[in-house]
């Protein structure tokens, strides 16, 4: 728990708009910059489950892809177990691909429709461990299938012949098949129904406990976060707002955005909740205002919030928030 496994240091990534229609090619216009992730500092410790929460478009998926090396950061660096891993060559990357694996959101599009269940699991295994004989590899595949609760008799089936729950199990089996130590899961539950969600959540937790895996879990579902997370990072518009232990976050949310998120979380009570705390919409990412990105929706915003971007600062209990109002004591922490 104390040893850092993954470190992001001042990582930024921007995208540029492209002409969307042919006639736009003839109109001179500077491509607009969309900064997806901005100066992100985050450390994931060995053996913990860190959840990243945020609304759609806040940069969660970009961050997952940066960590996995599917995108390269514009600025900053990413360290894994003490080694710098951003901008690695394809060949050098290979060693890390085996140690870190990803579970994607949509269990159907993440699977190759032309590979059977067995081939889908055999491929990564034989690619990363070419010394295995086919017999040994098959044995491992069967073990993996049993471990995630898929009947090995389904081995000859194609993804379209599986149910969505089975597909997500297969995705998890594929990620686990190369025996990684670190799993990045990008919204692995959002495409599933409630009764299947519970099955998959249990499976993820069991494997994490048995194999002492480190999880970086991206989600927008706070109930899931409360259930599995050790620490939680709340993201808004590409920046971190709050980073604290799961228990503190749910008992004592500090940042105005975190408070609003918790307020908006559907509760299984029939007593009326207060209305949403935040008014207005998420601002357009292409015209980011100066200062704090929450300024237009935050009831505590003042002149400083409109001009200066808040940075993370630590509280006495180890939690970190990025908010001028909290730092100045305008909100009681």
């Amino acid at each position, binding site marked *: 728990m104390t040893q850092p496994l993954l470190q992001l240091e001042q990582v930024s990534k921007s995208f540029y708009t492209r002409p969307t229609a042919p006639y736009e090619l003839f109109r001179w216009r500077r491509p607009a910059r969309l900064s997806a992730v901005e100066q992100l500092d985050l450390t994931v410790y060995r053996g913990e489950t860190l959840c990243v929460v945020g*609304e*759609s478009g806040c940069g969660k998926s970009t961050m997952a892809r940066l960590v996995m090396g599917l995108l390269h950061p514009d600025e900053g660096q990413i360290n894994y177990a003490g080694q710098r891993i951003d901008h690695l060559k394809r060949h050098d990357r290979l060693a890390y691909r085996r140690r870190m694996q990803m579970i994607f959101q949509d269990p159907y599009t993440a699977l190759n429709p032309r590979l059977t269940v067995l081939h889908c699991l055999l491929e990564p295994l034989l690619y990363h461990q070419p010394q295995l004989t086919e017999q040994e590899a098959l044995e491992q595949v069967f073990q993996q299938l049993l471990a995630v609760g898929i009947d090995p008799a389904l081995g000859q089936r194609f993804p379209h012949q599986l*149910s969505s*729950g089975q597909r997500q199990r297969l995705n998890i089996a594929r990620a686990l098949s190369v025996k990684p130590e670190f799993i990045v899961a990008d919204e692995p539950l959002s495409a599933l*129904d*409630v*009764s*299947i*969600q*519970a*099955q998959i*959540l*249990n499976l993820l*937790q*069991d494997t994490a406990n048995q194999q002492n895996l480190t999880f970086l879990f991206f989600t*927008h579902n*706070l*109930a*899931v976060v*409360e*259930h*599995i*997370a050790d620490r939680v990072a709340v993201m808004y518009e590409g920046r971190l707002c709050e980073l604290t232990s*799961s*228990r503190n976050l749910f008992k004592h949310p500090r940042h105005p955005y975190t408070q*609003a*998120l918790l*307020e*908006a*979380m*559907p*509760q*299984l*009570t*029939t*007593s*009326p*909740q207060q*209305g*949403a705390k*935040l*008014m*207005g*919409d*998420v601002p357009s990412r292409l015209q980011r205002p100066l200062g704090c990105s929450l300024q237009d929706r935050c009831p505590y915003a003042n002149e400083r919030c409109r001009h200066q971007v808040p940075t993370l600062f630590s509280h006495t209990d180890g939690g970190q928030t990025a908010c001028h109002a909290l730092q100045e004591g305008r909100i009681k922490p």
Partner: protein
Amino acid sequence: MMPLLHIDDLWVAYNGRGPNQPVQNMLHGISLSIQRGERVAIIGESGAGKSLLTMAIINLLQEGAFIRQGKIEFEDQVLNQLTPEALRLIRGRRIGMVFQDPMTNLNPLLTIEQQLVQCIRSHRRISYQDARTIALHKLRLVHIPAPESRLLQYPHQLSAGQRQRVTIAMALSLEPALIIADEPTSALDVTMQAEIMHLLNHLCQSNGVALLFVSHDLGLVAQHTDRSLIMYAGRIVEDGPTASLINDAQHPYTQGLIKALPQHSRPGSRLYQIPGQMPLPQQVGPGCAFAPRCPYTTERCLQQIPAPQGPGGHQASCHLLASDAAGDSHMGHTGGSL
């Protein structure tokens, strides 16, 4: 008092794919009624037939699907026997719809003003200016900032939350008696979801509009509805006041759904899981649809379809409730733990 909407033993089926293929039943004898001003939720997993039911109510079934049997009564009219012309007078005017995806729901080629005015003027003989005034008023009702300038914009210029507000404004523009909202917030973010739910609920309550709310999320509807119906594989398995349904669920499926929510278990502990998955409505066996996944299944469950049981307004379709002695000892009480 006559209910606003009354559905009696509704069966919806699809034609078989080939000439000799049998007809496939998708909805198996749905009965429900909604009073004026009542807020009702239909909850179920994807494929349970929730959307099919709402489409059957306003007779917008897709090709191949047809109402096999049953009656849909709405304000003294039988909807499934009306001519298309008569139906058109009801859709939009008496029954408003809010669909899931606000982008595909609005016409991308028309401005907000054109759409709203078109909608109002196709049902009421009033001048363009009057219709525009109504449209503006409805946009204010749904808290759209600067509605005058929004009227001139196209759907793609609005954010997802604002688009959904426009759809709600459109559904309200003709002062319907019933609004059917089919997963109105699933395309939206959590903070926006809370706001839209609040708005929809508030507007329906203050105008006395009945709301039929379709969702897969029990937690979301808990605070916003008076009554909930749980659907499973094309049947309604439980029907009761939302509070009593959540605190004292009778059907094993409802109990399982509530127990499976992560909100209600200790962080880090194992969640309750319902084994297996929901069968397709056309593949349900002769007995109770939930029997293959139910922890209390008996021989009878596999043979015979259970009838709704229970006192007054809270009914569940389960054999265990009929044989009460066995029922009490078998079925755990979820009420206390929630």
